[in-house]
């Protein structure tokens, strides 16, 4: 980000959203996303049993997969005409579009919580305490990361599910090119690319664990609008008789994580992951440290 790169610097959000002289980019992006949405809706919901439970596949899942496929580095590489339709410019513009397209969904979530507000308030203690469950990233992730031979990267990769606020905190504390930063960036990238696909499948199949659908619904609120939607959407499709309450619980929990997530990473996550790293690394870590 040096001064000399000013000419080639990426557009800021405000400039990205300005259609002046860039109408073509807007039209191509919108047409592509529109076609993908329609194809996804035409395929429709598919559900099938895999023995331990049901997997429900929703149109949003096909949409994200098709979206990834049409980008320049995947199919665009092979099909030249496609790379003209979806080039780097359209990819760049898609980011602020996601934020805006999420807002109508945010409104819909509000309309699901509002009528259920009494039930939601009654479940208040559960909502607050389950936020601590987000530290599960450390308890499950850190030992595995150490067994795989990761060093300080493990701290960054498992401190939370590494959405944007966490990226900011870790970047500030350790520097984004530090080992910790590299780890956080890794989990962040995985979540960005595969998060909705992963939770879209986990949401419906997790019913098989015997955990109550409402408890699973709360768990789906992780501070990421799209991951929460994937998890709760497929969970609601798998347990249709509770679908409204599931979506209401998930949305509430997600709002709460939006508020608490950052503080929980700073005051609980980072101290805990460092403490456990010191305790566990000598036992689980592989010798020959760098």
């Amino acid at each position, binding site marked *: 980000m040096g001064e000399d790169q000013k000419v080639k610097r990426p557009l800021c959000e405000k400039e990205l*959203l300005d*259609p002046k002289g860039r109408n073509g980019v807007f039209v191509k*992006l*919108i047409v*592509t*996303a529109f076609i993908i949405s329609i194809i*996804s*809706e*035409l395929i429709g919901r598919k559900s099938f049993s895999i023995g331990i439970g049901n997997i429900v596949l929703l*149109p*949003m899942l096909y*949409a*994200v997969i098709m*979206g*990834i*496929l*049409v980008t320049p580095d*995947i199919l665009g590489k092979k099909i030249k005409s496609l790379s003209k339709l*979806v080039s*780097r410019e359209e990819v*760049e513009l898609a980011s602020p*579009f996601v*934020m*805006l*397209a999420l*807002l*109508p969904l*945010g*409104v819909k979530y*509000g*309309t699901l*919580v*509002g*009528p259920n507000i009494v039930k939601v308030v009654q*479940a208040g203690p*559960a*909502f607050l305490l*389950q936020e601590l*469950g987000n530290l*599960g*990233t450390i308890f*499950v992730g850190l030992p595995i990361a150490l067994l795989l031979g990761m060093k300080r990267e493990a701290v960054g990769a498992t401190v939370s599910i590494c959405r944007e*606020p966490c990226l900011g905190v870790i970047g500030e504390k350790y520097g984004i090119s530090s080992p910790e930063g590299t780890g956080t960036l*890794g*989990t962040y990238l995985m979540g960005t*690319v595969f998060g909705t696909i992963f*939770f879209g499948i986990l949401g419906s199949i*997790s019913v098989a664990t015997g*955990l*109550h659908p*409402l*408890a699973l619904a709360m*768990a789906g609120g*992780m501070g990421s*609008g*799209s991951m929460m939607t994937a998890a709760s*959407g497929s969970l609601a499709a798998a347990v249709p008789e509770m679908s409204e309450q599931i*979506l209401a619980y998930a949305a509430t929990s997600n*709002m709460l994580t939006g508020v608490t997530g*950052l503080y929980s990473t700073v005051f609980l996550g980072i101290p805990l992951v460092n403490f456990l790293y010191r305790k566990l690394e000598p036992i689980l870590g592989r010798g020959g440290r760098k």
Partner: protein
Amino acid sequence: MALDKEKLFNQLKILIVVGMMVLVAQRVGYGISITAAIPGMIMVIGIAIFALFIRALTPNLQFPAFAWASLTALILSMPFMPTSRIFLQYTNQVNFLGTTAPILAFAGISVGNKIEQLKKLSWKVVIVAICVFTGTYFGSAIISHIILKMQGII
């Protein structure tokens, strides 16, 4: 803080386009009449732009526009609010899942510039990330299951 009207106006234009995409997508996917859904969609877009407005006014508050949109709709739809009946009657014509396909189509496209970075990640990160996702999900689910049970809600 000076409000950036130009940016807000451009955001509104995009919201209208997204709204039209949702109207067609939910016609195809769920058979909801486009004309019947238009009033509800206008309300939805109105709240969305209000959320962007509030977000722009409160740059230091780490509360995203998405959450403002939910919170506003939540308040308008609470049972004891005079707005709730009419608001829900119209917004019910906007299907929850119908709004999701366009979002995720954009989301899929937007990760296109991360593929090369992703290829550089080691397989270890892939496994660890899966454990991290599973950990937060079941960590929260187990705690809420226990508390809801203790409260007698489930």
